[in-house]
């Protein structure tokens, strides 16, 4: 094998996110480019980076609005990034925000860029409804009509059912076309296979809310959040300051009352122990270590390693196990070395299945092809500030958010290593290993 040139160190310079707002709520009138641009603009101002010196802007978004095919370019220009800086949108479903970061890191590592702004953004409130097949065909007939008579005939062909039963973008987006399963059903499979009970799942969901509430009240999220006054706000309305999905008064009894949502009547996955549908954006600035020194900035973290892994789409929720194994190997670290893990809470059952798989020799041998288990996940180190069950999971934003949160944990816990990992619809996992930068 020929000698490869040494890879360059990549660091996370700074990051910021909007609060996460429940879909259909306060950010319902937002627009992906506006939301992404506001947080990027604020990050650039606070970090005193001249946007003209950026090599690129990379944005992750799972469902860009139809009028913003390359939403990265639109939001970059709207954030005041000058025209000469190129921008691209990347997608890896739930990991799109993480993909923005890792693909920027790949460029920097390879010496093709020095300073890149990354954004993860999703306004799930604005996922569209589509005309169904029958209506679409009828519209085609209307547009093909040549004579007034043909047009009248075509128009007369419309039936109420064509217009009143649209295809729903968000449902289609959350369904895996290969396995035919909606995401919640993949979590039901894991719950059964790993013996996760309804009670375990509800307890985990409750803990997510409690931890998120404690983190918010302790000011932990103030490190990450810039308040946002959404489009559509009226006179007298105030900016959203905190994630609005956190339920302060959540009890185990309330959670227990909810019926299963995806598999009735015996399923274990409810809306209470799943992540919420959410609108938010997060922005990160990454650079080479050399560039950070030139700018005189102490980075939040060094990006020590990252990895993506593929698995059975029907069991996509185990993605973090596969990806973490690869990332730890790439970074030369063990699970025990990692001070805290942000593991995206798509579903409580899915997180608990991952916890079991991490600690299973059988799983390690059969699925990961390694001799022994990765290790036990100390509950105190797993999502110490709660996760998506409380905060929400704005698909394209989440990957960037959990990396940002894990990076801050380095300072909060005075730790050497933290990790952010998530499962990805379609059967993948992604993981980023972060390391403290000594100033």
């Amino acid at each position: 094998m020929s000698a490869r040139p040494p890879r360059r160190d990549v660091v996370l310079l700074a990051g910021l996110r909007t609060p996460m707002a429940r879909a259909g709520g306060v950010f319902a009138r937002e627009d992906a480019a506006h939301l992404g641009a506001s947080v990027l603009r604020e990050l650039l101002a606070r970090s005193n980076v001249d946007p003209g010196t950026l090599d690129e802007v990379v944005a992750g978004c799972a469902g860009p609005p139809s009028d913003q095919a390359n939403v990265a370019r639109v939001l970059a220009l709207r954030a005041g990034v000058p025209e000469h800086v190129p921008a691209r949108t990347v997608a890896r479903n739930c990991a799109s925000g993480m993909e923005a970061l890792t693909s920027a890191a790949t460029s920097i590592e390879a010496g093709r860029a020095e300073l890149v702004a990354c954004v993860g953004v999703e306004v799930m409130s604005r996922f569209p409804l589509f005309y169904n097949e029958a209506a679409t065909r009828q519209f085609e007939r209307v547009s093909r009509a040549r004579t007034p008579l043909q047009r009248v005939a075509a128009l007369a062909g419309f039936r109420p059912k064509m217009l009143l039963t649209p295809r729903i973008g968000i449902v289609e987006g959350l369904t895996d076309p290969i396995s035919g399963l909606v995401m919640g059903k993949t979590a039901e499979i894991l719950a059964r296979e790993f013996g996760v009970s309804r009670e375990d799942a509800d307890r985990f969901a409750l803990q997510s809310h409690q931890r998120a509430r404690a983190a918010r009240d302790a000011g932990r999220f103030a490190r990450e959040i810039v308040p946002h006054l959404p489009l559509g706000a009226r006179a007298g309305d105030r900016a959203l300051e905190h994630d609005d999905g956190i339920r302060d008064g959540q009890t185990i009894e309330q959670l227990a009352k909810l019926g299963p949502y995806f598999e009735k009547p015996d399923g274990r996955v409810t809306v209470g122990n799943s992540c919420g549908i959410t609108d938010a954006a997060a922005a990160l600035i990454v650079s080479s270590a050399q560039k950070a020194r030139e700018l005189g900035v102490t980075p939040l973290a060094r990006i020590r390693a990252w990895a993506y892994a593929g698995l059975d789409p029907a069991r996509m929720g185990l993605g973090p196990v596969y990806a973490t194994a690869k990332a730890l190997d790439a970074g030369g670290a063990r699970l025990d070395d990692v001070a805290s893990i942000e593991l995206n809470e798509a579903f409580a059952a899915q997180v608990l299945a991952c916890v079991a798989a991490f600690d299973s020799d059988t799983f390690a041998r059969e699925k990961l092809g390694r001799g022994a288990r990765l290790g036990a996940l100390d509950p105190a180190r797993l999502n110490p500030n709660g996760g998506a069950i409380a905060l929400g999971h704005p698909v394209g934003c989440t990957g960037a958010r959990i990396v940002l949160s894990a990076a801050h944990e380095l300072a909060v816990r005075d730790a050497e290593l933290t990790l952010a990992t998530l499962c990805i619809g379609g059967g993948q996992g992604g993981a980023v290993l972060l390391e403290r930068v000594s100033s």
Partner: protein
Amino acid sequence: MIDLTGIELPPDSPPPRSCVRLERPEPGLARLVLDPPHRTLAVFDAPTLRDFDLVLEDVENDATLRALVITGRDARTFAGGADVDAIAAATDVAFVRRFIEIGQRLWDRVAGLSRDRRGFTSVCAAGGPIPGGACELALACDRIVLSSAKETRIGLPETQLGILPAWGGATRLPRRIGVPAALDAILTGRLLAAADAYRRGLADRVVAPEDLVRIADGVALGRIACPRRGRRGIARYVVDRNPLAIALIAHQARKQVLARTRGHYPAPLAALEIAARAPLTSLESSFRAEAAAASELAVGPVAKNLIRIFRLSEDAKKLRKASDGSPVRAFERAGVIGAGVMGRAIASLLSERGIATRLADTSPAALDAALLEHRAEVDGRRKQRRIQQHEAQAALDRLDATRSITGFGRAQIVIEAVAERLDVKRAVLSEIAAQAGPEAILATNTSSLSVAAIAAELPHPERVVGLHFFNPVKKMPLVEIVRGPATSARTVAEVAALALRLGKTPVVTADCAGFLVNRLLGPYLDESLRLVAAGIEPARLDAALLAFGLPMGPLRLLDEVGFDVAKHAAASLHAAYGARMTPCDVLEAVGKDGRLGKKTGLGFYVHAGKRAELDPALLGLVPRSAARARTLTDAEVAERAILAMFAEATRALQEQVVVGPRELDLATVFGLGFPPFLGGLLAWADTQGLPTLVAKLERLQSEPDVAARPGGPERFAVADGLRELARGNGRYHA
């Protein structure tokens, strides 16, 4: 050939035929190009009119021609209209009338080409500014083709200068686009963008600037179809040529004009009479009416004053150049500290005008309100179709809010509008100075503190300047640029350029208490209050100053300003200037129980929405002074308030608070609302006669009620400069 006798050619005029060029690009077509070597933008001065005549004669004498295109040097340069300076200098009615008739006849000869020859087409192809006489030339052509570029502005602004469109404009515009639309255009004097001109039927086709001449040639020769837009079909007969309808429309328009001008401005009324009847009148007699009315107006005092103020505000634009005449940097990024009434409006205005602005305040509620007001404002402009969706979006993106003073490292100018306390302002600006770049300007919107004191502890006082906006920021047209002792000339030029970009007229003032405007406003308002205390009814006082020509009476103005703000300003003037600024106790006595002016809904007036009526309960609150004043006439009431302002102005002038009388007059018109038809405070004084005013000031000093009060005689004391000027029977303006 026209007779130019009596119209003097300046000695350095370019040679004949050099100002207007005739091109013959193809058989049958003549292209007449306005390209005078002595002007950057063609003006219809004597040499250009002379050459237009010569070239037009060539066209008339060539029977092979069937099309004429009139155009400018390029697609963004046509002509600026008649020579305003020549009109301003004229004092002889007969001379002005001749000047008008020359233009009328020339333009009508253009129209005559198609009247006299079958199948002849004339086309005006223009872009850039096309005001007044230039627009009238276009109206004489069969078709008007305009460049779609942003700079294109066409219209008839003459009434704004106290005259009327007399080169056929008041006659041809209503015939072309109908009486109602023409009255709107002529009475507002608004210049229209190309698309608007097309919508109203003034332009027949709007084309890309690169295609302007090619398409105009094609239209003239009939190769490119271009139907006339203005044809109004049946409305022509039902409205424009229906004496009954016209009488009704004219009546309504007259009522509106009188409500706006309160009879002080004769030009709109004269223009209205001619334009409304133009479709019913023969060209000849309509032209005669134009010439008669315009020549009378042009030599009258109102036109002279309005043209002078137009010139002054044009001259103020020169402030934006560096001392060597080079342009200064245009800001791209600004900061504003303080999201109060002033700060948020300044920030919103900056963002609207293309500058990325970061607004800081410690109060999240104030920031949220500021952003929402900005959004509402921008959205309003979008709904009025003054800006497009993507422009509105960009204007929103340009305003950011922050709760701490962070992220100002890349701002090129930071304007503070925090509380009027020296320690607060100093602290904020030094915090900014610590993070701002080496070129950044720090500006203060203070109205009562000294720029020198604010700048004292900052690292670069040469880049510290006062930038005094008036409330409401978006409406008030003046900005005082306060030059501290260390402020550099470049800094002044850069903020002047900014003020102009924001659509404001800048006036540079010295760093004295109240600067210029508030310094003059103080004694005027206090004297007004003293008149109320002396028994002048509030209604009479406000009516007297309205009749003088001010946009609102002093009590109404105090309501707008707010009693607390007015008291604070009066106290700081008193501290700085001593006895002559002694405030009376009326505001103190009246301003209780939440009576602070319009912002609390209750001042001298009761405010409900946009309506305001004097509060009858008020008279009981006003403390009475030993009065004699009840016997004053309305004119004397107004005069006393104005003289208090005038006496202070003469002192400010003597202390060189502004460069000279011209700048002072400009500031009084744009900052104080001094009636434009009077030409400004000192122009008014010149008209009154300085010796008369000196005598009046002296008489006022010995009025019993003035003499008896502290600082009374000092307020009306005659400044040395004024006394000297009056002795020689001199004037402030030559």
